[in-house]
Every structure is written in structure tokens, then in C-alpha cells.
């Protein structure tokens, strides 16, 4: 059953660019990765990072800069940007993980604002204008993937890789400790663990994957802007995660796809996109507290139990 669903999903993903604008699809994929990286922290460690955009945006600039100024192949640029992002995540984590809840959120927010202004002031980013003309250099230095539809398959493969990495982390011995920290940090500490170490590592992984998404996004649009670092993106990823269902594996992906798709559809109506987002958020919080995927899962379990009993 599960395998059939996965195969169906793969088939749809492969066929989609023939029916839908590839850039929109690739945007969705980038945010699918981004929201999943955020959910790794919120849903599985219980950390609300209100500055996730700093990883997305910084990496976009770094990957863009590498591609523009050096001759490195595309995968090297993306991985290097993700690595820098992971290091930033480790540093932010080192400062912030001793705090929880709103304090943690505010420290990460402060860091994100700091990164925003650094990038605004920096010479190499192009400031308000953003960084234009980022080339899609050859994969492994030999394979030309610059055509939009071909590039879509590259982004799709990268997304699968990133999602698999997150799946791996969640379903690992380390992931079990993360979930335990989420449920009861004091208890984990009393068992002889140092929760802050686990949280810092989780921050690094989450930031690395968010950076991976940002670098990928820069190659999709072939430009990087300050929007990607702005706090509205940090807020939007919370909305995506809550809409889909935090702490569920597929929830943030569904949420990301829904929000990006809606934004695209409603773009012609200007502010209405934001109003629609607000209404959706209110409806989800009032009626679907576990998010779309979370509620669907709960419903599925209830029905199965009823059939059993």
C-alpha cells in the first residue's frame, strides 16, 4: 500500500513538468525542503526557530557568488553553501539552545535580522538590487542541465535526497533522543544526556538542509534577493508547517506546496494573497490543530481502530 503510494507520487512528480510551469514546481520543491528542515526542529525537538530564513537566504547568496565568480560545478556550489549554513546553524545553536520557547525564538530572530543587515550592507550581494545572473553551471562539470525541464529533474532528485536525509535523521538513534528531548527535556538530562549538545547538532542539520534549499532556489531563479532572508519568510515557513501538521513527516511538504501554489494563484490579486494566508491560518488553528496531514492521520487511525474493534 505504502509502496504503491510512493510509486504513484514518483510517477506524478516525473510527469508534472509537462502540465505545470516548471519554475513553480521547482519553487514548491525548494520550499518543501525548507519547511521540512524547519519541522525537524519544531516538530521533533520542540524548538521554534523564528529565523530559519537566514539559512535559506545566506546560502542562496553564497551559492550564487560561487557560481558567478568561480568555475565550480553546480553541486559543489550547493553543498558548499549548505555547509556554511550548517556552521552558522551550529553557532546560533551554541548561543541559543540553553533557552527555550519564546526566548529561543527571539534569539534566533535577532540572529536572522543581523544576517539580513549584513547581507544588505555587503558589497557582493548587490544590496537592495539582489544578485542577478546566477548561472546554472554543468552538473559534475560535464552534464548540461540548464534547460528548465531538465533542471526540474535535477531539483527533484536533490529534493528526494534532502527529504531522505531528514527521514534518516528522524528515524535514527539520535532522532529518538531528539523526540525524547521534545517530550521531556529535564528527564533526558536526568538520564545522563546533555540535551544542549543534541540540540546544537539538530540545529546544524536543520540549518544545513535549509541552506541546501536556499542554494537550490538561487539556481532555480538564477537570482538571490533579500526577500529570502526576510523575517516574513521565517514566518511563512511556520505557517506552512502548521498548515500541513508539525511533527508529521509529510505535513510540512503538503503545507509548503499549498502555500506556494496559493501565493502563485493569488499573486494577481495583490494583498489578497496575504489575506488568504491569514484566513487559512485562522481556520487551521481553529479546526485542524494537528494540521491537514495530522488530522488525516488521526482520522485514519480512528477508522482503523473502529474496524478492528
Amino acid at each position, binding site marked *: 500500500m505504502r509502496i504503491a503510494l510512493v510509486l504513484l507520487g514518483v510517477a506524478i512528480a516525473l510527469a508534472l513538468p509537462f502540465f505545470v510551469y516548471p519554475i513553480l514546481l521547482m519553487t514548491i520543491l525548494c520550499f518543501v525542503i525548507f519547511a521540512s528542515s524547519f519541522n525537524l526542529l519544531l516538530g521533533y525537538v520542540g524548538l521554534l526557530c523564528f529565523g530559519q530564513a537566514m539559512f535559506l537566504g545566506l546560502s542562496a547568496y553564497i551559492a550564487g557568488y560561487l557560481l558567478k565568480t568561480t568555475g565550480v560545478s553546480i553541486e559543489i556550489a550547493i553543498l558548499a553553501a549548505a555547509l556554511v549554513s550548517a556552521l552558522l546553524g551550529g553557532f546560533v545553536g551554541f548561543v541559543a539552545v540553553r533557552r527555550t520557547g519564546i526566548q529561543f525564538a527571539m534569539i534566533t530572530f535577532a540572529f536572522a535580522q543581523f544576517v539580513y543587515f549584513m547581507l544588505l550592507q555587503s558589497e557582493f550581494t548587490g544590496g537592495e538590487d539582489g544578485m542577478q545572473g546566477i548561472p546554472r553551471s554543468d552538473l559534475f562539470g560535464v552534464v548540461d542541465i540548464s534547460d528548465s525541464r531538465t533542471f526540474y529533474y535535477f531539483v527533484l532528485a536533490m529534493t528526494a535526497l534532502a527529504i531522505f536525509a531528514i527521514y*534518516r*535523521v528522524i*528515524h*535514527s*538513534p*539520535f*532522532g*529518538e*533522543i531528539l*523526540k*525524547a528531548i*521534545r*517530550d*521531556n527535556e*529535564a*528527564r*533526558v*538530562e*536526568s*538520564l*545522563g*544526556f*546533555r540535551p544542549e*549538545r*543534541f540540540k546544537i*547538532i539538530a540545529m546544524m*542539520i536543520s540549518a544545513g538542509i535549509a541552506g541546501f534549499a536556499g542554494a537550490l532556489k538561487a539556481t532555480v531563479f538564477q537570482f538571490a534577493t533579500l526577500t529570502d532572508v526576510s523575517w516574513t519568510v521565517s514566518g511563512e515557513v511556520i505557517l506552512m508547517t502548521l498548515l500541513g501538521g508539525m*511533527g508529521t513527516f509529510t505535513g510540512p511538504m503538503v503545507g509548503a506546496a499549498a502555500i506556494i501554489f496559493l501565493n502563485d494563484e493569488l499573486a494577481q490579486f495583490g494583498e489578497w494573497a496575504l489575506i488568504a494566508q491569514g484566513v487559512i491560518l485562522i481556520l487551521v488553528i481553529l479546526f485542524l490543530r494537528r494540521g491537514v496531514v495530522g488530522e488525516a492521520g488521526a482520522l485514519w487511525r480512528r477508522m482503523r481502530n473502529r474496524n478492528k474493534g
Partner: protein
Amino acid sequence: MTTEYALEARGLGRKFGAFWAVKDVDLKVRRGSIHAMIGPNGAGKTTCFNLLTKTLQPSTGSIILNGEDISRLRTSDVATQGMARSFQISATFTQMTALENVRVALQAGKGTAYRFWRPLGSIAHLNTRAMELLENVGLQDSAGVAASDLSYGKKRALEIATTLALDPQVMLLDEPTAGMGHEDIEPITELIRKVSVGRTVLIVEHNLSVVSSLSDRITVLQAGQILTEGNYAEVSSDERVIAAYMGGVEDAL
């Protein structure tokens, strides 16, 4: 190295502002015994407990575990030194199954806990031990149940199984029967008796009937200081103890 006393406190004190919640507490817990600490509400039992587990830093005095000063260690280090604690409010990992709860503790002190790139199958060998621990507390049929779906009594049992996973020499139990109905108190008391074999146990408890049947020695706290110490017969006939408990929970005596 074995010392006569597994756990000792010397001149232990803790000040909150100008108020001494615990003052000049000298405590000696004999190895292999079950030692209880009782006292009326606000006597400083919980503060004392938190000091001993290093959840709180002491203002004065020192704590000696197996002859070694642990006053400066952090909470997580105390566990690796062989002293494990339970919590007053049942501390389980609510969204994880009973088996996973115990398995978390089994990963303590092992390098596996940091392996984020390995599949869960890599710690499947811990499942056997986790099941044994669950059987030990009578939870073998609830292994796959999420901790949040367990009854209150079973949550306490799960917490004890998780604590036992550390195989601690010294166990500190914070009001193990707090908030329990009569039907749950008896099995938990029996369970504590069973798992304390070969270990040293310090119980902070409000319920005196639990203490009377379990403990070898009782320390009575009042207003942050030790009022008296002795076996149950001595302590329960002490007029100062009776007076301290008067108006509070005299029916419990």
C-alpha cells in the same frame, strides 16, 4: 570501592533570597538500604531532593556519592556516576511508546545516541533488554503503547523501568505515590521493594504508610532542617514529629 554510606550530605543548605529552604542538612544513606525523607508540606523535601540530584545548586555544604564529592557536577553527570532519579509528576516521553521510552535510557552513556545517520535497526539489540525491563515492572503488554495512553499507575511503572535501565547503584524517588489512588499505591510500593534489591534507595514521600512498610530508616524534615532520624517506630512515636504533622496530615500517621 565501596563506602559504608552510598550517599551523604554534609551541611547542605540552599537559600532563596533571604530564606533558607534547606539548612544544615546532614544525611547519611547506608548502602543497600531504603531511606525515606518525610516532612509536612513546605518542609524542604523537594528542595533537598533537587539539591541531591544537582537540579539545584547548593548554597552551602557538599554531597558525597560513593565517597566522591559530586557537589560541582551537572545533572547529567550525576546519572553517569550511578545515581538516577525519578520525578514527582510522572516523567515519560509522552509521544513515544513504552519500549522507546526505556530504549532512550538504554542509549545513555553510549556513543550510539549521536548517530544521526544510522537507521533505528542499529539499536534493535537494545529491544531485548528494554522488554526485560518492561516485564520487570509488568508492562510487557504495553510495549507498543504511547506513554500518553498509559494509565497513571502504568506511567509511574514505566518511569521506574526507564530509571532502572541506567542500572543505578543509587535511586532517588521523588514522591513515587503522589497523586495515586489506593488501588495503585500498593502495586507501586511492591514494585519499589522489588527493584530496590541490591541498590540504595532514597525516597521523598508524603504518604507515611508507604514509608512505614518500605524504609529501613527515616529522616524527618521540618522548616528546612532535620527534626529527627530513626526507624519508623522511633520516628512515629516522637512527639515533635507528631506535632509537626498535626493539622497537616495527622490521619496519615
